[in-house]
């Protein structure tokens, strides 16, 4: 016969487990955007969500939504979920945590082509076939696309809509694959995507941070990345801050596993 105390412990344990199952960490994520996240949990943001949830004694549940215009509005702001695992630290639509990494835009080329371009001012940019991501219209495009246009580098630039064909896996990766296949000689892309694709590419790729960006202000080429919660959700934000501080080494190792090019984060 079970003693009362352990009986109660069992009940409480049961309650606690039920609670943990009943209140998972509700994450808003894109189901098709590696290396960040996918529906199978293969992205580093999926892994990070598991790390954070484990720290909280919770499981993870997802609200899936393509990360486009309306993503925050339809997921986090609509109360469908409580945290976005990756947002720019200055993102106005959310309350951001402490940044947990900083990355930059990079140039990607094939190693065997020996194109050692890093500077935005490199004259070779006028000749090389360059791929960029396209996001929108004036004021709605990635910084490299703006910077090349400002210098009149236009005719040799090939645009890859970041949205791509959503039936395919990881549509933004088409830009890096175009470097592999030789469709473009150089791609300008956000570091984490480029680093991850390069890690798994069938040919050796060269990934270098873009330099000489200061003349293109207010465009930024490096960004601190944080987690985002609803404005006013300070309790959760502080919990996440605490986990980011305590598990910084593990988080950094996770990012390294995924080939994310990193720079020291700006202290806030």
């Amino acid at each position, binding site marked *: 016969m079970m003693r009362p105390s352990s009986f109660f412990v069992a009940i409480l344990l049961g309650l606690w487990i039920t609670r943990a199952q009943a209140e998972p960490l509700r994450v808003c994520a*894109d189901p098709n*955007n590696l290396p*960040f996240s996918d529906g199978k949990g293969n992205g580093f943001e999926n892994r990070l969500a598991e790390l954070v949830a484990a720290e909280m004694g919770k499981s993870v549940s997802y609200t*899936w*939504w*393509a*990360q*486009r*215009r*309306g*993503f925050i509005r*339809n997921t986090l702001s609509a109360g469908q979920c409580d945290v976005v695992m*990756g*947002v*720019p630290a*200055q*993102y*106005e*639509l959310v309350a951001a945590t402490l940044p947990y990494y900083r990355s930059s835009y990079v140039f990607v080329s094939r190693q065997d082509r020996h194109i050692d371009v890093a500077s935005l001012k490199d004259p070779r940019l006028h000749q090389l076939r360059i791929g960029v*991501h*396209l*996001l*929108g*219209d*004036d*004021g*709605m*495009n*990635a*910084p490299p*696309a*703006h910077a*090349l*246009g*400002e210098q009149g580098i*236009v*005719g*040799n*630039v*090939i*645009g890859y*809509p*970041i*949205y791509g*064909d*959503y*039936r395919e896996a990881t*549509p*933004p990766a088409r830009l890096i694959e175009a470097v592999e296949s030789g469709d473009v000689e150089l791609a300008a892309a*956000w570091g*984490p*995507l480029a680093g991850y694709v390069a890690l798994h590419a069938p040919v050796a790729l060269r990934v270098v941070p873009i330099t000489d960006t200061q003349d*293109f*202000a*207010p*465009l*930024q080429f490096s*960004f601190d*990345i944080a987690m985002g919660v609803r*404005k006013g959700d300070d309790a959760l934000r502080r919990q996440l801050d605490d986990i980011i501080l305590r598990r910084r080494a593990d988080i950094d190792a996770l990012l390294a596993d995924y080939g994310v090019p990193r720079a020291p984060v700006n202290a806030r």
Partner: protein
Amino acid sequence: MSPFASCSISRAGVALFACISCAGDASAQSLSALASDARNWPIAARDYAATRFSALDQINAGNVARLKLAWSFSVGANRGQEAAPLVIGGVMYVVGPYDGPHPNQVFALDAATGDLKWSYAPKPEPAAKGVACCDVVSRGLAYDNGRIFLNTLDDHMVALDAKSGQELWVTKLGDINLGETITMAPLAVKGKVFAGNSGGEMGVRGWLTAVDQNSGHIVWRAYSTGPDSETLIGADFQPRYDWMKGKDLGVKSWPADHWRTGGGTVWGWLSYDPETNFIFYGTGNPGPWNSNQRAGDNLWTSTVFARDADTGAAKWAYQMSPHDLWDHDEVNENVLLDLDVGGASRKVLVHPGRNGYMYVLDRATGEVLSADAYDTVTAYKGVDLQSGRIRPNEALTPVLDRTVENICPAPPGAKDWQPMAWSPRTRLLYVPHQHLCANFSASDVSYIAGTPFVGATVDMYAGPGGYRGEFLAWDPVKRAKAWAVTEKLPVWSGALVTAGDVVFYGTMDRLFKALDAKTGQLLWQIRAPSGFVGQPVTYMGGDGVQYIAILSGVGGWPGVIANAEIDPRVRNSALGFVGAVQDLPLYTAAGSTLLVFSLGDASAPRQQ
């Protein structure tokens, strides 16, 4: 189907009903014939000329103050209600937006009693959820030969039996996974149905597609950018102006291959001239490239096309904004009129430009007869009638390294999709539109698909005078304002004008209004459940009563806004038009109610 009688319309435009009961079947009548019977509203724009004029005059300026709610109906989806109800032979067909358990649901109702006859719920791909970013409206249905044609947001065209609601065929026209959606009302012409795509800011290449009404097969598709073979520009293409003449200009007026992701989507209105067999429509702005990455005129974006309805072959084109800098699509309606121009009657097309100019074009040739500012314009310095080219104010080019102020009209234009009406009695155009200017500056960090960037803040605000909307009566012969009523918020609903000399429109702050078409005097208004972004229509029920109908339910562009006065933490999203209507939640929440009004004389209980 209620028995239908033939009717004649006198020259004064007053319908005289010799209501002889006959077993006429509306389904066998041509759409032109259905439109000539004032009791019907068989096309979203009422007729092929897109006038939105009804010859009904039971309701007139003298009695409209007695208008009462006759019946109402919820379409069960609380998003922007932009659809025009159709009425053919006493039956109303209406479609809801993409929301709720039954997105884009179609309902058939007795137009006099509101009895539900049937409903049809398409099964859009669940995978589509969230792939289309913003605009989930439907602007209405089309009817022809006993069939209802529906465009779903996820790019399908569906044909339904108008009597039973039974699905006849479904054709996939585009792919939501490529950023394509369909929001426009289709147009049925001579055994075909036309529809175009939305999604210009996502790199979608615009097209207009013709579908065979019987088989559902695609007959032709005309792209807005690319080589002549794909834009259907051939031997009989005769643009009026030299700069639009030449081979493959849809390729050559772009750098390298930039036309492949060139925008020019087709999400507005179509009109049709049976005399020439031309269809007319406008294309969207160039995208998704920044202006500094797309040197050239970027044909055929921001362009009005005339095409042969049978083959799609382009007859003429006129580009309103070569190398558009301010997101000024030119998808607005093209109203076909006979107007006195310089002492002679001309067959014209009137196009209220998003760019702020009221264009009058010769509809046979595309010649610009006049282009006059109907709202505050600073982004341009006028239209050169010799060359046909607009003169952009380059000083206001949006570039991220500086703040550009006082851009008028703002990106949504002086007028957006909300359609105007024309009265052959007053000879005036009734133009619902917004009155907004914008500042452009770099500041916000944005994030799309895991890619961070510094985007633009487009701060929009009321134009000169401090109002944000206007209901304008415009005289296209005098090329001047006849009268105007200013509104606190943008006027985002369509207009309706009748032979009773009453004009109707709705406001975003929940008022449905009737004005004297001659003077603009307010004759009647009613507070509704939700703000208006819909299209008012009028018809006669099987009971001989004239009804006015409009969907109430705010949304579309303004539906995504939050209130800065209540929540100062909310900032503008890039090109998201949030700032201009931050007070909207003080006036309205979302809604989904079809409102049907009559004079109430016939509201005695009926035998069911």
